[in-house]
């Protein structure tokens, strides 16, 4: 047929300049040429600059002596250790403050977010004021506020503020009793692991039984009893090996116990209070995103308000909440780099010191970028697994 013949013909074009394929090829080639020539130009400049300034290149410096002290060292470190070890200490500090911050921010954020949806007018308003204050000021300012505004003007060690459980608070930080694990305390750890495994098994079997027969089993209380009870039994059986080392007041300072430095404390409080405001908004949006019909239908089925929230609203709200929550966790991890402003030795601070001492800016910034990218990827990976478990199972 004639009309089909016409369709099969190559559509005529005015000129090859208007052919989208040729155009796309042309623009991409142009971009590649521009990109490579500018990269070549930059590399050329960098090599010339480094030679002129007599700066070495390569990662050989990682094996040489660091020569600076770090105030918080989760692993053994002295100024005689290598640069590499200094960077590892920094990375560990970043991870410690990020994990602690994520836990604290999640707790505070969920509490405030649920509070904003409360029936109670006063609680609602208090939570709104909290969110509106902390969302609209820079996190660095919050860090300074805790550090130089609150913690630095606390009383000196001699007039420490006494807190419950034998802990103290003064301008040098927060002193907590430290657990001392004696001989045989490994039994407690084994008991805890065993209890968790048993609780998981009980939960699994209870779920199977409920699916098969409809009978319910008090999983929560059984798990609590197992997880608390077994370690306590192990503690008693192994002859009570756990003691506490309480901080003691001496003439000028407190000795013993576990010392939390003000740098860490203000960074942790600031990061978690700041991020909590954002998490609260996410939680509120998530709960409001579950349509009212869902809870009404659950009510019509005869569920009480507790089970409605636990079985119907929260599982659906979590689907909305988790993706933005992940990006808040990533933000918190990245914001932990503000530690440099108050001298907490996180990754950025130690890498900055290394960079200043060796002058190897390219390598220093490269290490920082790779480390944070890896941290971000790991966090997203973990949260993606959580998200996949929560996501809607379409049948």
């Amino acid at each position, binding site marked *: 047929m004639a009309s089909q013949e016409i369709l099969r013909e190559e559509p005529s074009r005015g000129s090859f300049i208007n052919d989208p394929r040729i155009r796309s090829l042309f623009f991409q080639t142009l971009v*590649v040429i521009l990109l490579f020539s500018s990269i070549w130009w930059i590399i050329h400049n960098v090599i010339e600059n480094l030679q002129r300034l007599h700066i070495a290149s390569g990662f050989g410096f990682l094996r040489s002596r660091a020569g600076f002290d770090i105030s918080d060292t989760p692993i053994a470190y002295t100024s005689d250790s290598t640069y590499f070890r200094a960077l590892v200490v920094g990375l560990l500090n970043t991870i410690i403050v990020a994990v602690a911050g994520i836990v604290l921010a999640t707790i505070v954020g969920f509490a405030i977010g649920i509070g904003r949806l409360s029936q109670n007018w*006063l609680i609602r308003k*208090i939570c709104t004021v909290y969110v509106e204050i902390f*969302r609209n*000021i*820079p996190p*660095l300012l919050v860090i300074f506020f805790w550090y130089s*505004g609150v913690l630095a003007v606390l009383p000196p060690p001699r007039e420490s503020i006494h807190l419950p459980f034998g802990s103290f608070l003064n301008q040098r930080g927060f002193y907590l009793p430290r657990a001392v694990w004696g001989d045989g305390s490994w039994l407690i750890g084994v008991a805890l692991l065993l209890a968790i495994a048993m609780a998981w098994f009980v939960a699994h079997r209870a779920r199977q039984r409920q699916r098969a027969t409809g009978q319910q089993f008090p999983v929560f209380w059984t798990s609590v009893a197992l997880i608390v009870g077994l370690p306590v039994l192990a503690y008693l059986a192994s002859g009570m090996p756990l003691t506490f080392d309480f901080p003691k007041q001496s003439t000028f300072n407190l000795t013993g116990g576990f010392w939390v430095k003000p740098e860490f404390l203000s960074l942790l409080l600031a990061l978690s209070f700041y991020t909590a405001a954002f998490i609260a908004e996410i939680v509120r949006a998530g709960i409001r995103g579950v349509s009212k019909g869902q809870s009404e239908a659950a009510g019509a089925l005869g569920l009480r308000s507790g089970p409605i929230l636990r079985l119907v609203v929260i599982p659906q709200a979590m689907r909305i909440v988790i993706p933005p929550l992940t990006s808040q966790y990533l933000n918190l991890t990245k914001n932990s780099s503000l530690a440099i402003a108050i001298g907490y030795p996180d990754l950025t601070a130690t890498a900055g010191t290394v960079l200043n001492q060796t002058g190897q800016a*390219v390598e220093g910034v490269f290490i920082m970028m790779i480390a944070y990218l890896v941290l971000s990827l790991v966090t997203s990976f973990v949260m993606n697994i959580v998200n996949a478990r929560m996501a809607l199972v379409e049948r």
Partner: protein
Amino acid sequence: MQEHDMSWVRTEMALAQPAPPTERGAYAWVRKNLIGSVGDTILTVLGIAIVLWVLPQVINWAFINAVWTGPDRTVCTTASQGGIQPDGWTGACWAFVNAKFGQFMFGTYPVEERWRPILVAILFVALLVPMLIPRVPRKGLNALLLFVALPIVAFFLLVGGVFGLPHVETPRWGGLLVTLSLSFVGIAVSLPMGIVLALGRRSKMPIIKWLCVVFIETVRGIPLITVLFFASVMLPLFLPEGVSFDKYLRALIGVSLFAAAYMAEVIRGGLQAIPKGQYEGADSLGLGYWQKMGLIVLPQALKLVIPGIVNTFIGMLKDTSLVLIISMFDLLGVVKQNFADPNWATPQTPKSGLIFAAFVFWLLCFGMSRYSMYTERRLDTGYKR
């Protein structure tokens, strides 16, 4: 016998009865909102306790016990600390803010030249206010003046060196001047850059697409401080010998690159929300790529993501405070720098200065978020349910 009709139809409306007394007035409100149940009552009592515990302390500290004016630290210290206040006194030291106000606004910008930033600020407000009020006409001309003419005028006014104005180097800039100028230029640069990156990420050309993806994901995966480090220590190495950038410009490049990556993701969200029919409709009208994007897709997409764009602006304004780490002094940096002034070192100085800075940041960010909510409602023309 009189015929009696049993049927009866009411012809007038019954008068509305007032709601039962338990359901109206202040009492019902209190019952519903404060003491609905036992748990609610406990929460209310707890809330009142918190308010009663916090509020008097705050008011006492910030207003009643506060010192508003004074020549030096003696007005803000107790007798045992060498001042004039009674022992045990705590109160805000607004005298510190008062004395340093010029520095907080302009940094070490020469005092006799401070009319220049003030003039720029007046011009900025005069152009911004009609821009923000929807009813004022000539938005196009206004935008041209605000985003093209003003930056040029402001550049010559602030930097100087021409028309007989003395040159002021950027290291002497500081305070709110740096905060606002960095964020304004950052906004003006990052929005178009973000649009280009977002379009690039959705482009059909693989090389351009992957370049944009790598740039956006790398920048979003690292903290701003790292980007600023990059801008301050690596950019000088990238340039040939003798060519050097101003530190202010380097910070500006870092902040803009960082904001552009976030902006790109926000705009991509908007582009994805536009139905396919819009793209196909534009194609069928014979529009080219830039016509299709500029006339059909972007106006709709940008309107959808205004809240996200404003959130990025707010984030950027807050992030400018980080330039203090590469030793530039924005508002927060200047405030912090002045804690070290021995003339004003008191236990109350840091708290007072930081609360002042927090208040300024809060006003700017809160104002921006409220304006964006207003615009969102106003522009919500299409997708209303």
